[in-house]
Protein backbone atom coordinates (compact mmCIF):
# COMPACT_ATOMS: atom_id res chain seq x y z
CA UNK A 1 0.00 0.00 0.00
CA UNK A 2 2.82 2.35 0.91
CA UNK A 3 6.23 1.87 -0.63
CA UNK A 4 9.19 3.82 0.68
CA UNK A 5 12.44 3.80 -1.25
CA UNK A 6 15.80 5.15 -0.11
CA UNK A 7 14.20 7.80 2.06
CA UNK A 8 16.66 10.30 3.51
CA UNK A 9 16.03 13.46 5.51
CA UNK A 10 18.79 15.80 6.61
CA UNK A 11 18.27 18.74 8.93
CA UNK A 12 21.43 20.75 8.36
CA UNK A 13 24.27 18.36 9.17
CA UNK A 14 22.05 16.00 11.12
CA UNK A 15 20.67 13.02 9.24
CA UNK A 16 17.35 12.16 10.89
CA UNK A 17 16.38 9.43 8.43
CA UNK A 18 19.06 7.73 6.38
CA UNK A 19 18.35 5.70 3.26
CA UNK A 20 15.37 3.76 4.62
CA UNK A 21 13.39 1.49 2.30
CA UNK A 22 10.35 -0.40 3.46
CA UNK A 23 6.74 -1.17 2.65
CA UNK A 24 3.59 -0.73 4.67
CA UNK A 25 1.39 -3.71 3.94
CA UNK A 26 -2.30 -3.34 3.31
CA UNK A 27 -4.64 -4.65 5.97
CA UNK A 28 -1.88 -5.21 8.48
CA UNK A 29 -0.53 -3.59 11.60
CA UNK A 30 2.87 -2.18 10.74
CA UNK A 31 4.96 -0.95 13.66
CA UNK A 32 8.00 1.28 13.78
CA UNK A 33 10.18 1.04 16.85
CA UNK A 34 13.52 2.44 17.86
CA UNK A 35 15.24 4.29 20.68
CA UNK A 36 14.46 7.96 21.32
CA UNK A 37 15.79 10.13 18.52
CA UNK A 38 15.86 7.23 16.06
CA UNK A 39 13.88 9.28 13.54
CA UNK A 40 10.49 7.63 13.96
CA UNK A 41 8.39 10.77 14.13
CA UNK A 42 10.44 12.34 11.32
CA UNK A 43 9.64 9.23 9.30
CA UNK A 44 5.91 9.85 9.90
CA UNK A 45 6.33 13.52 9.06
CA UNK A 46 7.92 12.55 5.76
CA UNK A 47 5.11 10.17 4.85
CA UNK A 48 2.38 12.64 5.78
CA UNK A 49 4.02 15.50 3.93
CA UNK A 50 5.00 17.70 6.85
CA UNK A 51 8.63 17.54 5.72
CA UNK A 52 10.00 17.08 2.22
CA UNK A 53 12.56 14.29 2.07
CA UNK A 54 16.11 15.21 1.07
CA UNK A 55 16.06 12.22 -1.27
CA UNK A 56 14.06 9.06 -1.88
CA UNK A 57 10.47 8.44 -2.91
CA UNK A 58 7.20 7.59 -1.21
CA UNK A 59 4.58 5.79 -3.26
CA UNK A 60 1.03 5.36 -2.03
CA UNK A 61 -1.22 3.05 -4.04
CA UNK A 62 1.13 3.35 -6.99
CA UNK A 63 1.08 7.11 -6.83
CA UNK A 64 4.13 9.22 -6.02
CA UNK A 65 3.24 11.35 -2.99
CA UNK A 66 6.81 12.39 -2.11
CA UNK A 67 6.27 16.09 -2.67
CA UNK A 68 2.57 16.41 -1.78
CA UNK A 69 1.49 18.77 0.99
CA UNK A 70 0.03 17.34 4.21
CA UNK A 71 -3.56 18.28 3.43
CA UNK A 72 -3.33 16.68 -0.02
CA UNK A 73 -1.92 13.46 1.49
CA UNK A 74 -4.80 13.46 3.98
CA UNK A 75 -7.33 13.78 1.17
CA UNK A 76 -5.80 10.73 -0.49
CA UNK A 77 -6.76 8.76 2.61
CA UNK A 78 -3.75 8.91 4.92
CA UNK A 79 -4.80 10.02 8.41
CA UNK A 80 -2.55 10.48 11.39
CA UNK A 81 -2.64 11.10 15.11
CA UNK A 82 -0.09 13.01 17.16
CA UNK A 83 1.67 12.23 20.43
CA UNK A 84 -0.37 15.01 22.02
CA UNK A 85 -3.79 15.81 20.63
CA UNK A 86 -4.86 19.43 20.75
CA UNK A 87 -8.61 19.46 21.24
CA UNK A 88 -10.75 22.52 21.75
CA UNK A 89 -11.37 22.03 25.45
CA UNK A 90 -14.32 24.40 25.70
CA UNK A 91 -16.37 22.56 23.11
CA UNK A 92 -18.11 19.22 23.31
CA UNK A 93 -16.40 16.05 22.13
CA UNK A 94 -18.78 15.79 19.17
CA UNK A 95 -18.15 19.42 18.19
CA UNK A 96 -14.45 18.65 18.11
CA UNK A 97 -15.03 15.76 15.72
CA UNK A 98 -17.31 17.38 13.16
CA UNK A 99 -14.45 19.13 11.36
CA UNK A 100 -12.83 15.72 10.80
CA UNK A 101 -14.90 15.11 7.70
CA UNK A 102 -14.42 18.63 6.34
CA UNK A 103 -11.89 17.44 3.77
CA UNK A 104 -14.60 15.42 2.00
CA UNK A 105 -16.91 18.47 1.70
CA UNK A 106 -16.92 21.33 -0.75
CA UNK A 107 -19.03 24.12 0.78
CA UNK A 108 -17.37 27.51 0.61
CA UNK A 109 -18.11 31.06 1.70
CA UNK A 110 -20.94 31.49 -0.78
CA UNK A 111 -22.73 28.37 0.47
CA UNK A 112 -22.38 29.73 4.00
CA UNK A 113 -23.79 33.16 3.18
CA UNK A 114 -26.78 31.95 1.18
CA UNK A 115 -27.31 28.92 3.43
CA UNK A 116 -27.27 26.49 0.51
CA UNK A 117 -28.79 23.04 0.63
CA UNK A 118 -25.36 21.61 -0.15
CA UNK A 119 -24.02 23.15 3.06
CA UNK A 120 -26.90 21.76 5.12
CA UNK A 121 -26.43 18.33 3.61
CA UNK A 122 -22.68 18.38 4.17
CA UNK A 123 -23.07 19.53 7.75
CA UNK A 124 -25.47 16.67 8.33
CA UNK A 125 -22.98 14.22 6.83
CA UNK A 126 -20.09 15.61 8.91
CA UNK A 127 -22.14 15.26 12.07
CA UNK A 128 -23.10 11.72 11.14
CA UNK A 129 -19.47 10.75 10.37
CA UNK A 130 -18.40 12.26 13.69
CA UNK A 131 -21.03 10.21 15.53
CA UNK A 132 -20.05 7.03 13.69
CA UNK A 133 -16.38 7.58 14.49
CA UNK A 134 -17.17 8.24 18.13
CA UNK A 135 -19.29 5.12 18.23
CA UNK A 136 -16.46 3.12 16.62
CA UNK A 137 -13.99 4.09 19.36
CA UNK A 138 -16.62 3.34 22.00
CA UNK A 139 -17.21 6.83 23.33
CA UNK A 140 -20.77 7.56 22.20
CA UNK A 141 -21.73 8.28 25.78
CA UNK A 142 -19.25 11.18 25.92
CA UNK A 143 -20.71 12.99 22.90
CA UNK A 144 -21.85 16.03 24.85
CA UNK A 145 -19.05 16.17 27.40
CA UNK A 146 -16.56 19.01 27.18
CA UNK A 147 -13.33 17.88 25.57
CA UNK A 148 -11.42 19.44 28.46
CA UNK A 149 -13.15 17.14 30.96
CA UNK A 150 -12.28 13.72 29.54
CA UNK A 151 -9.43 11.43 30.60
CA UNK A 152 -6.12 10.94 28.83
CA UNK A 153 -7.18 7.56 27.46
CA UNK A 154 -10.46 9.02 26.23
CA UNK A 155 -8.49 11.80 24.53
CA UNK A 156 -6.47 9.16 22.71
CA UNK A 157 -9.69 7.56 21.54
CA UNK A 158 -11.09 10.90 20.43
CA UNK A 159 -7.86 11.46 18.47
CA UNK A 160 -8.45 8.08 16.75
CA UNK A 161 -12.04 9.11 16.03
CA UNK A 162 -10.86 12.37 14.51
CA UNK A 163 -8.52 10.45 12.22
CA UNK A 164 -11.30 8.00 11.33
CA UNK A 165 -13.73 10.79 10.49
CA UNK A 166 -11.49 11.72 7.55
CA UNK A 167 -12.37 8.31 6.00
CA UNK A 168 -8.79 7.14 5.68
CA UNK A 169 -7.42 3.89 4.26
CA UNK A 170 -4.11 4.19 6.05
CA UNK A 171 -3.83 5.46 9.63
CA UNK A 172 -0.52 6.60 11.11
CA UNK A 173 -0.58 6.46 14.90
CA UNK A 174 2.20 8.26 16.79
CA UNK A 175 2.51 6.65 20.23
CA UNK A 176 -1.16 5.73 20.53
CA UNK A 177 -0.64 4.33 24.03
CA UNK A 178 1.70 7.01 25.34
CA UNK A 179 0.74 8.18 28.80
CA UNK A 180 -2.03 5.67 29.50
CA UNK A 181 -1.99 2.86 32.05
CA UNK A 182 -1.51 -0.88 31.26
CA UNK A 183 -5.20 -1.88 31.33
CA UNK A 184 -6.10 1.02 29.08
CA UNK A 185 -3.24 0.05 26.75
CA UNK A 186 -4.88 -3.33 26.25
CA UNK A 187 -8.13 -1.59 25.35
CA UNK A 188 -6.38 0.67 22.83
CA UNK A 189 -4.60 -2.33 21.27
CA UNK A 190 -7.98 -4.00 20.85
CA UNK A 191 -9.28 -0.82 19.19
CA UNK A 192 -6.35 -0.87 16.76
CA UNK A 193 -7.13 -4.50 15.87
CA UNK A 194 -10.75 -3.50 15.32
CA UNK A 195 -9.61 -0.81 12.89
CA UNK A 196 -7.70 -3.39 10.87
CA UNK A 197 -10.65 -5.81 10.96
CA UNK A 198 -12.70 -3.02 9.41
CA UNK A 199 -10.39 -2.81 6.43
CA UNK A 200 -7.95 -0.14 7.54
CA UNK A 201 -4.20 -0.34 7.35
CA UNK A 202 -2.36 0.81 10.45
CA UNK A 203 1.19 2.03 10.87
CA UNK A 204 2.21 2.95 14.40
CA UNK A 205 5.10 4.17 16.48
CA UNK A 206 5.18 2.85 20.00
CA UNK A 207 7.54 2.43 22.91
CA UNK A 208 5.54 -0.15 24.79
CA UNK A 209 7.25 -3.40 23.80
CA UNK A 210 4.61 -5.77 25.19
CA UNK A 211 1.97 -4.04 23.17
CA UNK A 212 3.99 -3.98 19.95
CA UNK A 213 5.13 -7.59 20.16
CA UNK A 214 1.59 -8.88 20.56
CA UNK A 215 -0.04 -6.40 18.19
CA UNK A 216 2.20 -5.90 15.17
CA UNK A 217 2.21 -8.05 12.07
CA UNK A 218 5.41 -6.46 10.94
CA UNK A 219 8.03 -4.35 12.68
CA UNK A 220 10.54 -1.90 11.27
CA UNK A 221 13.40 -1.04 13.63
CA UNK A 222 15.13 2.32 13.26
CA UNK A 223 18.27 3.39 15.06
CA UNK A 224 20.05 6.67 14.41
CA UNK A 225 17.86 7.13 11.36
CA UNK A 226 18.83 3.85 9.77
CA UNK A 227 16.86 0.67 9.30
CA UNK A 228 18.59 -2.02 11.32
CA UNK A 229 15.97 -4.74 11.11
CA UNK A 230 12.56 -5.56 9.69
CA UNK A 231 10.26 -8.54 10.04
CA UNK A 232 7.74 -10.29 12.23
CA UNK A 233 7.90 -9.71 15.98
CA UNK A 234 9.61 -13.08 16.41
CA UNK A 235 12.25 -12.26 13.79
CA UNK A 236 12.90 -8.84 15.22
CA UNK A 237 13.14 -10.16 18.74
CA UNK A 238 15.74 -12.69 17.66
CA UNK A 239 17.80 -10.22 15.66
CA UNK A 240 21.12 -9.56 17.44
CA UNK A 241 21.42 -6.08 15.95
CA UNK A 242 18.10 -5.11 17.50
CA UNK A 243 18.99 -6.57 20.87
CA UNK A 244 22.27 -4.71 20.77
CA UNK A 245 21.04 -1.35 19.56
CA UNK A 246 17.70 -1.02 21.14
CA UNK A 247 16.37 -3.61 23.52
CA UNK A 248 19.64 -4.06 25.40
CA UNK A 249 20.95 -7.37 26.72
CA UNK A 250 18.54 -7.43 29.68
CA UNK A 251 15.62 -7.62 27.27
CA UNK A 252 17.10 -10.42 25.21
CA UNK A 253 14.98 -13.06 26.86
CA UNK A 254 11.55 -11.49 26.30
Amino acid sequence: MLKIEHLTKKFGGNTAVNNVSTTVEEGKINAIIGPNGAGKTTFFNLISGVHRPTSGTITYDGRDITSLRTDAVARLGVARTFQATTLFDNASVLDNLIVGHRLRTRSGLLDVLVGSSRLREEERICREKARNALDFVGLSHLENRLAGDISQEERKRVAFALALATEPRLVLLDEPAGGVNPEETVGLAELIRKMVRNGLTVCLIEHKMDMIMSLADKILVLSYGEKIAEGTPAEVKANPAVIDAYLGSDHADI
Partner: protein
Amino acid sequence: MLNRLHGPLGWTLLFLAGLLFPFVVGNDYHLTVMSTAYLFAIATLGLNLIVGYTGQFNLAHAGFMAIGAYTVGILTVDHGFSYWLSFVLAGAVTVAVGLPLGWVSLRLKGHYFSIFTLCVGYIIYLVIEKWEDLTHGPVGIIGIPAPEPIGDFGFETPRAQYYLMFFFLVLGVWAMRRIVNSLLGRTFMAIRNGDDLAEALGINLMRNKLLAFLISVLYAGWAGALYAGFVRFLGPDIAGVHHTFDMTMYMLIGGLGTLIGPLFGSLSVPWITQYLQFLQEYRFVIFGPILILLVIYLPHGVVGTWLGWRARRAAQVSAAAKPE
Protein backbone atom coordinates in the same frame (compact mmCIF):
# COMPACT_ATOMS: atom_id res chain seq x y z
CA MET B 1 -34.08 31.99 32.24
CA LEU B 2 -30.61 33.18 31.23
CA ASN B 3 -30.29 30.18 28.93
CA ARG B 4 -33.25 31.26 26.86
CA LEU B 5 -31.41 34.43 25.95
CA HIS B 6 -28.98 32.34 23.98
CA GLY B 7 -30.11 31.85 20.40
CA PRO B 8 -32.76 33.60 18.31
CA LEU B 9 -34.64 35.14 21.24
CA GLY B 10 -31.55 36.88 22.56
CA TRP B 11 -30.65 38.19 19.13
CA THR B 12 -34.20 39.46 18.60
CA LEU B 13 -34.11 41.31 21.92
CA LEU B 14 -30.75 42.88 21.05
CA PHE B 15 -32.12 43.86 17.66
CA LEU B 16 -35.18 45.50 19.20
CA ALA B 17 -33.00 47.31 21.74
CA GLY B 18 -30.87 48.69 18.92
CA LEU B 19 -33.96 49.67 16.96
CA LEU B 20 -35.56 51.51 19.88
CA PHE B 21 -32.35 53.09 21.21
CA PRO B 22 -32.86 56.49 19.49
CA PHE B 23 -36.31 56.78 21.05
CA VAL B 24 -34.95 56.11 24.52
CA VAL B 25 -32.03 58.52 24.53
CA GLY B 26 -32.88 62.16 24.23
CA ASN B 27 -29.81 63.77 22.82
CA ASP B 28 -27.86 63.53 19.61
CA TYR B 29 -24.55 63.21 21.38
CA HIS B 30 -25.48 59.82 22.76
CA LEU B 31 -26.58 58.74 19.30
CA THR B 32 -23.20 59.77 17.94
CA VAL B 33 -21.34 57.85 20.63
CA MET B 34 -23.41 54.77 19.86
CA SER B 35 -23.02 55.12 16.09
CA THR B 36 -19.24 55.35 16.50
CA ALA B 37 -19.33 52.32 18.74
CA TYR B 38 -21.26 50.41 16.03
CA LEU B 39 -18.63 51.36 13.47
CA PHE B 40 -15.82 49.98 15.55
CA ALA B 41 -17.98 46.98 16.46
CA ILE B 42 -18.17 46.09 12.76
CA ALA B 43 -14.38 46.30 12.44
CA THR B 44 -13.93 44.35 15.68
CA LEU B 45 -16.25 41.59 14.44
CA GLY B 46 -13.92 41.24 11.48
CA LEU B 47 -10.79 41.27 13.62
CA ASN B 48 -12.31 38.59 15.81
CA LEU B 49 -12.64 36.26 12.82
CA ILE B 50 -8.91 36.18 12.12
CA VAL B 51 -7.74 36.54 15.74
CA GLY B 52 -10.44 34.89 17.82
CA TYR B 53 -11.63 32.16 15.47
CA THR B 54 -8.59 31.48 13.30
CA GLY B 55 -5.90 32.25 15.88
CA GLN B 56 -3.78 34.59 13.78
CA PHE B 57 -3.08 37.75 15.74
CA ASN B 58 -3.33 40.43 13.07
CA LEU B 59 -2.16 43.85 14.24
CA ALA B 60 -2.66 45.69 10.95
CA HIS B 61 -6.43 45.88 11.28
CA ALA B 62 -6.65 49.67 11.72
CA GLY B 63 -4.51 49.98 8.59
CA PHE B 64 -7.15 48.14 6.58
CA MET B 65 -9.86 50.25 8.14
CA ALA B 66 -7.91 53.30 6.95
CA ILE B 67 -7.61 51.85 3.44
CA GLY B 68 -11.41 51.57 3.25
CA ALA B 69 -11.89 55.04 4.70
CA TYR B 70 -9.35 56.68 2.41
CA THR B 71 -10.76 54.92 -0.66
CA VAL B 72 -14.08 56.64 0.05
CA GLY B 73 -12.42 59.95 0.93
CA ILE B 74 -10.23 60.10 -2.16
CA LEU B 75 -12.87 58.88 -4.61
CA THR B 76 -15.63 61.20 -3.37
CA VAL B 77 -13.62 64.38 -2.73
CA ASP B 78 -10.96 64.23 -5.45
CA HIS B 79 -12.76 62.31 -8.18
CA GLY B 80 -16.40 63.13 -7.65
CA PHE B 81 -17.58 59.53 -7.20
CA SER B 82 -20.85 58.99 -5.38
CA TYR B 83 -20.59 57.79 -1.79
CA TRP B 84 -22.24 54.44 -2.40
CA LEU B 85 -20.12 53.58 -5.42
CA SER B 86 -17.03 54.51 -3.37
CA PHE B 87 -18.34 52.38 -0.53
CA VAL B 88 -18.52 49.31 -2.76
CA LEU B 89 -15.09 50.06 -4.21
CA ALA B 90 -13.68 50.53 -0.69
CA GLY B 91 -14.45 46.88 0.01
CA ALA B 92 -12.85 45.83 -3.26
CA VAL B 93 -9.71 47.92 -2.68
CA THR B 94 -9.28 46.66 0.88
CA VAL B 95 -9.51 43.05 -0.27
CA ALA B 96 -7.20 43.74 -3.22
CA VAL B 97 -4.56 45.19 -0.87
CA GLY B 98 -5.21 42.48 1.72
CA LEU B 99 -4.66 39.65 -0.74
CA PRO B 100 -0.91 40.08 -1.34
CA LEU B 101 -0.28 41.30 2.21
CA GLY B 102 -2.11 38.33 3.69
CA TRP B 103 -0.46 35.91 1.30
CA VAL B 104 2.97 37.04 2.44
CA SER B 105 2.32 37.58 6.14
CA LEU B 106 0.29 34.38 6.73
CA ARG B 107 3.40 32.39 5.88
CA LEU B 108 4.60 33.40 9.32
CA LYS B 109 3.26 31.82 12.47
CA GLY B 110 2.42 33.02 15.96
CA HIS B 111 4.33 36.03 17.24
CA TYR B 112 6.17 36.41 13.96
CA PHE B 113 2.89 36.99 12.20
CA SER B 114 1.87 39.56 14.81
CA ILE B 115 5.13 41.48 14.59
CA PHE B 116 5.03 41.38 10.81
CA THR B 117 1.47 42.71 10.67
CA LEU B 118 2.32 45.36 13.26
CA CYS B 119 4.91 46.59 10.77
CA VAL B 120 2.46 46.29 7.87
CA GLY B 121 0.01 48.46 9.81
CA TYR B 122 2.67 51.05 10.47
CA ILE B 123 3.74 51.07 6.83
CA ILE B 124 0.12 51.69 5.80
CA TYR B 125 0.07 54.59 8.25
CA LEU B 126 3.31 55.99 6.84
CA VAL B 127 2.14 55.66 3.24
CA ILE B 128 -1.03 57.57 4.09
CA GLU B 129 0.89 60.26 5.93
CA LYS B 130 3.65 60.72 3.36
CA TRP B 131 1.92 60.22 0.02
CA GLU B 132 0.48 63.71 -0.04
CA ASP B 133 -0.51 63.73 -3.72
CA LEU B 134 -2.90 60.88 -3.12
CA THR B 135 -3.98 61.16 0.49
CA HIS B 136 -3.47 64.88 1.27
CA GLY B 137 -0.90 63.78 3.86
CA PRO B 138 -1.16 65.04 7.43
CA VAL B 139 -3.70 67.71 6.41
CA GLY B 140 -6.23 64.96 5.83
CA ILE B 141 -9.29 64.88 3.63
CA ILE B 142 -11.98 67.43 4.40
CA GLY B 143 -15.55 67.64 3.18
CA ILE B 144 -16.39 64.02 2.51
CA PRO B 145 -20.07 63.91 1.48
CA ALA B 146 -22.62 62.10 3.57
CA PRO B 147 -24.07 58.99 1.95
CA GLU B 148 -26.63 59.94 -0.70
CA PRO B 149 -30.26 59.33 0.24
CA ILE B 150 -31.66 55.93 -0.63
CA GLY B 151 -35.22 56.59 -1.78
CA ASP B 152 -36.69 59.04 0.71
CA PHE B 153 -34.27 58.04 3.42
CA GLY B 154 -31.49 60.62 3.81
CA PHE B 155 -28.45 60.25 6.05
CA GLU B 156 -27.90 63.80 7.26
CA THR B 157 -29.44 63.63 10.73
CA PRO B 158 -27.76 61.83 13.64
CA ARG B 159 -30.75 59.53 13.91
CA ALA B 160 -30.60 58.53 10.25
CA GLN B 161 -26.86 57.97 10.55
CA TYR B 162 -27.46 55.87 13.62
CA TYR B 163 -29.81 53.62 11.68
CA LEU B 164 -27.33 53.39 8.82
CA MET B 165 -24.60 52.13 11.18
CA PHE B 166 -27.11 49.89 12.91
CA PHE B 167 -28.16 48.38 9.59
CA PHE B 168 -24.58 47.49 8.66
CA LEU B 169 -23.84 46.16 12.13
CA VAL B 170 -26.88 43.87 11.92
CA LEU B 171 -25.79 42.74 8.47
CA GLY B 172 -22.24 42.16 9.74
CA VAL B 173 -23.40 40.15 12.75
CA TRP B 174 -25.79 38.13 10.60
CA ALA B 175 -23.07 37.19 8.09
CA MET B 176 -20.52 36.49 10.82
CA ARG B 177 -22.99 34.30 12.68
CA ARG B 178 -23.51 32.24 9.55
CA ILE B 179 -19.78 31.92 8.99
CA VAL B 180 -18.72 30.91 12.48
CA ASN B 181 -21.58 28.46 12.99
CA SER B 182 -20.87 26.66 9.72
CA LEU B 183 -18.36 24.08 8.55
CA LEU B 184 -16.25 27.01 7.40
CA GLY B 185 -16.16 28.40 10.94
CA ARG B 186 -15.22 24.96 12.25
CA THR B 187 -12.41 24.87 9.72
CA PHE B 188 -11.07 28.19 11.01
CA MET B 189 -11.33 27.00 14.61
CA ALA B 190 -9.47 23.81 13.76
CA ILE B 191 -6.60 25.97 12.51
CA ARG B 192 -6.71 27.98 15.73
CA ASN B 193 -6.52 24.80 17.81
CA GLY B 194 -3.42 23.63 15.98
CA ASP B 195 -1.93 24.07 12.55
CA ASP B 196 -0.44 20.58 12.50
CA LEU B 197 -3.62 18.74 13.38
CA ALA B 198 -5.73 20.88 11.05
CA GLU B 199 -3.42 20.16 8.17
CA ALA B 200 -3.37 16.45 8.96
CA LEU B 201 -7.18 16.58 8.76
CA GLY B 202 -6.84 17.69 5.16
CA ILE B 203 -7.41 21.40 5.70
CA ASN B 204 -5.52 23.63 3.30
CA LEU B 205 -3.97 26.04 5.79
CA MET B 206 -3.00 28.86 3.46
CA ARG B 207 -6.29 28.95 1.59
CA ASN B 208 -8.39 28.99 4.75
CA LYS B 209 -6.22 31.45 6.66
CA LEU B 210 -6.25 33.74 3.65
CA LEU B 211 -10.03 33.47 3.35
CA ALA B 212 -10.48 34.36 7.04
CA PHE B 213 -7.99 37.20 6.64
CA LEU B 214 -9.79 38.63 3.61
CA ILE B 215 -13.24 38.44 5.20
CA SER B 216 -11.70 40.11 8.23
CA VAL B 217 -10.15 42.99 6.28
CA LEU B 218 -13.36 43.39 4.29
CA TYR B 219 -15.16 44.12 7.56
CA ALA B 220 -12.40 46.61 8.42
CA GLY B 221 -12.57 48.23 5.00
CA TRP B 222 -16.31 48.70 5.10
CA ALA B 223 -16.19 49.93 8.69
CA GLY B 224 -13.63 52.49 7.50
CA ALA B 225 -15.83 53.45 4.56
CA LEU B 226 -18.75 54.03 6.94
CA TYR B 227 -16.44 56.03 9.21
CA ALA B 228 -15.52 58.31 6.30
CA GLY B 229 -19.16 59.06 5.52
CA PHE B 230 -19.99 59.49 9.20
CA VAL B 231 -17.16 61.69 10.47
CA ARG B 232 -16.73 63.38 7.05
CA PHE B 233 -13.10 64.10 7.78
CA LEU B 234 -10.09 61.80 7.58
CA GLY B 235 -6.56 62.05 8.93
CA PRO B 236 -3.75 59.48 8.96
CA ASP B 237 -4.55 58.88 12.63
CA ILE B 238 -7.30 56.42 11.63
CA ALA B 239 -4.55 53.96 10.59
CA GLY B 240 -2.82 54.29 13.98
CA VAL B 241 -2.07 51.06 15.77
CA HIS B 242 -3.88 52.33 18.89
CA HIS B 243 -7.14 51.68 17.06
CA THR B 244 -6.09 48.06 16.55
CA PHE B 245 -5.24 47.82 20.23
CA ASP B 246 -8.61 49.34 21.15
CA MET B 247 -10.35 46.70 19.07
CA THR B 248 -8.18 43.99 20.59
CA MET B 249 -9.20 45.26 24.02
CA TYR B 250 -12.89 45.07 23.04
CA MET B 251 -12.38 41.45 22.02
CA LEU B 252 -10.50 40.56 25.19
CA ILE B 253 -13.11 42.14 27.43
CA GLY B 254 -15.99 40.45 25.65
CA GLY B 255 -14.28 37.19 24.80
CA LEU B 256 -12.05 36.12 21.91
CA GLY B 257 -13.62 33.70 19.48
CA THR B 258 -17.19 34.33 20.57
CA LEU B 259 -19.75 36.11 18.46
CA ILE B 260 -21.29 38.30 21.11
CA GLY B 261 -18.04 39.03 22.99
CA PRO B 262 -16.53 41.58 20.59
CA LEU B 263 -19.96 43.17 20.31
CA PHE B 264 -20.22 43.42 24.07
CA GLY B 265 -16.73 44.88 24.36
CA SER B 266 -17.00 47.40 21.57
CA LEU B 267 -20.39 48.66 22.72
CA SER B 268 -19.68 48.80 26.45
CA VAL B 269 -16.13 50.19 26.59
CA PRO B 270 -16.94 53.48 24.80
CA TRP B 271 -19.70 54.11 27.35
CA ILE B 272 -17.43 53.29 30.27
CA THR B 273 -14.79 55.68 28.94
CA GLN B 274 -17.52 58.28 28.42
CA TYR B 275 -18.51 58.07 32.05
CA LEU B 276 -14.91 58.21 33.18
CA GLN B 277 -14.46 61.34 31.06
CA PHE B 278 -14.58 63.58 34.14
CA LEU B 279 -11.31 62.04 35.24
CA GLN B 280 -9.76 63.28 32.00
CA GLU B 281 -6.30 61.81 31.40
CA TYR B 282 -6.40 60.01 34.73
CA ARG B 283 -9.22 57.76 33.57
CA PHE B 284 -6.68 55.23 32.36
CA VAL B 285 -5.39 54.94 35.91
CA ILE B 286 -8.76 53.38 36.70
CA PHE B 287 -9.33 51.70 33.39
CA GLY B 288 -5.90 50.07 33.18
CA PRO B 289 -6.15 48.08 36.43
CA ILE B 290 -9.72 47.00 35.55
CA LEU B 291 -8.42 45.64 32.28
CA ILE B 292 -5.53 43.82 33.95
CA LEU B 293 -7.85 42.25 36.54
CA LEU B 294 -10.18 41.18 33.80
CA VAL B 295 -7.42 39.50 31.79
CA ILE B 296 -6.14 37.71 34.90
CA TYR B 297 -9.45 36.55 36.31
CA LEU B 298 -11.59 36.29 33.19
CA PRO B 299 -9.09 35.29 30.48
CA HIS B 300 -11.96 34.24 28.23
CA GLY B 301 -13.68 37.60 28.62
CA VAL B 302 -17.05 38.35 30.13
CA VAL B 303 -19.06 36.59 27.44
CA GLY B 304 -16.51 33.80 26.99
CA THR B 305 -16.61 32.99 30.70
CA TRP B 306 -20.38 32.91 30.68
CA LEU B 307 -20.46 30.64 27.60
CA GLY B 308 -17.89 28.31 29.17
CA TRP B 309 -19.94 28.08 32.34
CA ARG B 310 -23.04 27.39 30.27
CA ALA B 311 -21.34 24.68 28.19
CA ARG B 312 -20.16 22.97 31.37
CA ARG B 313 -23.65 23.09 32.82
CA ALA B 314 -25.15 21.65 29.64
CA ALA B 315 -22.56 18.86 29.64
CA GLN B 316 -23.39 18.00 33.25
CA VAL B 317 -27.11 18.01 32.58
CA SER B 318 -26.74 15.65 29.63
CA ALA B 319 -24.33 13.41 31.57
CA ALA B 320 -26.85 13.18 34.39
CA ALA B 321 -29.67 12.38 31.99
CA LYS B 322 -27.62 9.66 30.29
CA PRO B 323 -25.65 7.79 32.94
CA GLU B 324 -22.49 6.12 31.68
